[in-house]
């Protein structure tokens, strides 16, 4: 009977060695050096861009994919000993936490100025890469765009009882509430939260689930980011019965949010890190985001997704990314109001 066990162990060892071999084969450093990226943006979204960069520059790129907040926590735990050169985050919250810990290096002026000052950190510690807007996604079988109120406050009307979906634990939603606190003030924001709560909204885990539920007709409207809808349209066709509505009123419900990138001060590959950040802001990469992920490019002169209004024509909330940094205050308000546990 022991013979069989040895075979099993031998088999495991063989599988393991194959795994190792495929690693070492791919980890031979080339002349252009290497670069280590921690990406809070998912592999399905950004791997093609990173591959393009690697091909064009000859830099050997290693990427750790994860959730933005968990990677931010990882960077905080690693401190000066982090192997990472670049942190590419889904939202400003994670970047802010790492910036506050003093782990980021300032970016050069010519990199920063490629992007509107609203979409980068005031201290120049990180820069926005692509944008998305907050929208109301609605079911086209039960609603027309003109049925929707002029701002999110309109959804506190009892007519919307049981018809709203939201994801209060989602980072983008919380960023919007932070914008509300900045622009509407604490009191009115609390009033809005309680008003929506009174309408018994259906609570979701994230944007995707909301868009899906609106498409199924489980709810009529949902507060989401614009680009999830396009995934469904791509996979399920134009018959998918949901569309986006941008509030376009200049208030916090017309918020533009960004993904951003930063360089770690302790990183060993400074030159490649800057090369990569500049590549993300190049027309090639920006065009990729516009056409593949349906996001807004933040650099001028790039063709955007059909059906989207160009960023410069939107009446977007006038607020800087630094003003969106107070997540702690937002979390406290959400808890007080009983929106999150």
């Amino acid at each position, binding site marked *: 009977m022991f013979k069989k066990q040895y075979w099993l162990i031998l088999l*495991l060892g063989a599988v393991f060695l194959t795994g190792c071999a495929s690693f070492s084969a791919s980890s031979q450093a080339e002349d252009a050096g290497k670069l280590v990226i921690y990406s809070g943006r998912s592999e399905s979204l950004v791997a093609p861009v990173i591959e393009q960069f690697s091909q064009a520059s000859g830099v050997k790129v290693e990427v750790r994919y994860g*959730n933005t907040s968990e990677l931010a*926590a990882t960077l*905080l735990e690693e401190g000066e000993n982090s192997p990472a050169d670049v942190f590419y985050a889904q939202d400003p919250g994670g970047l802010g936490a790492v910036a506050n810990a003093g782990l980021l290096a300032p970016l050069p002026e010519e990199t920063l100025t490629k992007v509107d000052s609203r979409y980068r950190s005031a201290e120049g510690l990180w820069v926005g890469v692509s944008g998305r807007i907050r929208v109301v996604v609605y079911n086209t079988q039960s609603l027309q765009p003109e049925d929707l109120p002029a701002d999110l406050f309109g959804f506190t009307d009892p007519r919307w009882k049981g018809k709203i979906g939201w994801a209060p634990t989602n980072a983008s939603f919380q960023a919007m509430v932070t914008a509300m606190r900045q622009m509407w003030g604490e009191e009115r924001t609390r009033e809005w939260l309680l008003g929506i709560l009174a309408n018994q909204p259906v609570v*979701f885990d994230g944007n995707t689930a909301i868009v899906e539920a609106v498409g199924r007709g489980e709810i009529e409207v949902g507060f989401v980011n614009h680009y999830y809808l396009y*995934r469904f349209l791509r996979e399920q066709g134009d018959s998918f019965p949901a569309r986006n509505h941008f509030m376009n009123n200049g208030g916090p419900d017309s918020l533009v949010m960004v993904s951003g990138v930063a360089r770690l001060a302790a990183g060993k590959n400074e030159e490649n890190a800057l090369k990569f950040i500049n590549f993300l802001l190049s027309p090639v990469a920006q065009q990729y985001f516009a056409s593949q992920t349906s996001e807004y490019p933040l650099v001028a002169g790039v063709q955007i997704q059909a059906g989207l209004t160009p960023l410069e024509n939107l009446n977007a909330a006038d607020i800087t990314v630094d003003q969106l940094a107070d997540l702690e205050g937002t979390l406290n308000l959400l808890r007080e109001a009983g929106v999150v*546990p």
Partner: protein
Amino acid sequence: MSRDFILSGRFGTISSPPARGSWLYLPAVLVALGMTVPLIYLIIRASSADQSVWSWLLRVQTLQIMGQSLLLAVTVMVSAMFFGVLLAWLVTRTDLIGRKLWAALLPLPLVIPSYVGAYLFVSFFSPRGLLQTLLQTWFGVDRLPSIYGFWGTWLVLTLLTYPYVFLAVRAVLSRSDRSLEEAARSLGYSPLQTFLKVTLPQLQPALAASGLLVGLYVLRDFGAVSILRFTTFTRAIYLQYQSSIDRSAAALLSLVLILITIGFLAAEQQFRHSAAEHPHTAVRPAGPIRLGGGQVPALFAVNLILLIGLVLPAGVLFYWLVRGVAAGEQLSGWLRPLVGSLSAAGLAALITSLAALPVSILTVRRSGWFNKVLEKWSYLGYAVPGVVVALALVFFGANYLPALYQTLAMLLFAYMILFLPQAMGTLQASLRQVQRSLEEAAASLGENPLRVFQRVTLPLMMPGVASAAALVFLTTMKELPATLLLAPIGFSTLATQVWAAVSEAYFARAAAPALILILASSVSMYLINHHSTQSGSSQ
């Protein structure tokens, strides 16, 4: 007590020299030290938690959340134990048609990550899900009742966790002596009476251990509770990370979770303590219980559970895959994650089972407070959410062991911390069935302890070892937080691929790796099963 004592075959305890096997303390204590890493980290981080966290912790709502956590853990535990025992009994003790096949299929829901399982469940059963679409075309049903909240979460978690009980109980039933049961039957007991009065008491240690695993799984689950919208304590901890990246607050909450776990461990100890040991060695092939007319309801139960727990999830995945391929989705690049998953999970199964052996032997073969503490200590990593263990190792690895940081060794260490109790529970249960007089006979014939273990104890507990390795293998296949944060950079597994695609709503892209994950785990399950039955019968 003396009757129990005699029945339990514990004569050896008195005569065996106390010093034997003491060398086992060295590896056991080393493993326990490893388990301490998350605890030290949590204490360091929690000590800097500020006032607002404490005030949040002491609110009425927080108590309510804790209550919800406990309610969910206990109810899932009870239902998982019920189904686990019932199914294990059906496939080992009866003439159920196709029981070999059911035995191979029934553990499989274990391989489905909870966030994927919950997601698939929602897309099928939700008020406007796939099922409603079908019912609409046939019967014009417009909307199904909501599945969110407590009951949906309870159902999904029960289906994902009953295999823990099933595997543990099956391992005991397939080795335990049936002569008592046959005697009971010949004395006129009905199958049910025999089961309750004779079989169930033998199962008590295995039930206690696997029930504990289920309870703790539920306490620290994040995926199912967040998708099915039921707020538990772990969900609160994740929120803390997600929203404010406040590590000290999350650490404090994790320490509370450890306190709750200590309560569970104490309860398990009580439950197990009341159980007598029933060591047997001679497995006599006995005629299975004839189900007769009971075949139909039994087959119905088995198939219903497999339908909801395995066929439906796989079916939805297959639907996504077909729909995606029809829309022109490219399917490629699954080989590397497959190799990654298999090698990581295979090594984790090997190492974790090995690491669990010394402490399992010590705690079963010896009593005393130190051994008890050693045993409970092993649950430390299992008491807190995976991301907490992962961050603890990030902290220690990056700052104190840079040479090992983000290597496969570090990842395997994390898996060991996370899954050791799973292996330990199963090993202990099977060790309790090994008659000590056999070991002593071998020792008295002049064999050294290592040889006794290799030639007598290990072969007898082989089905248990196989089960333990299988459990660790299957749970490692789906592990996510530690793999994401600690794996060598660029190392991908099927679970990370599924997560990356699902989190961005690329369903078709998620479907292929998820199906391969289920398939690869099934094949591995089959091999382990096959292997353990063969080695069991070759003695």
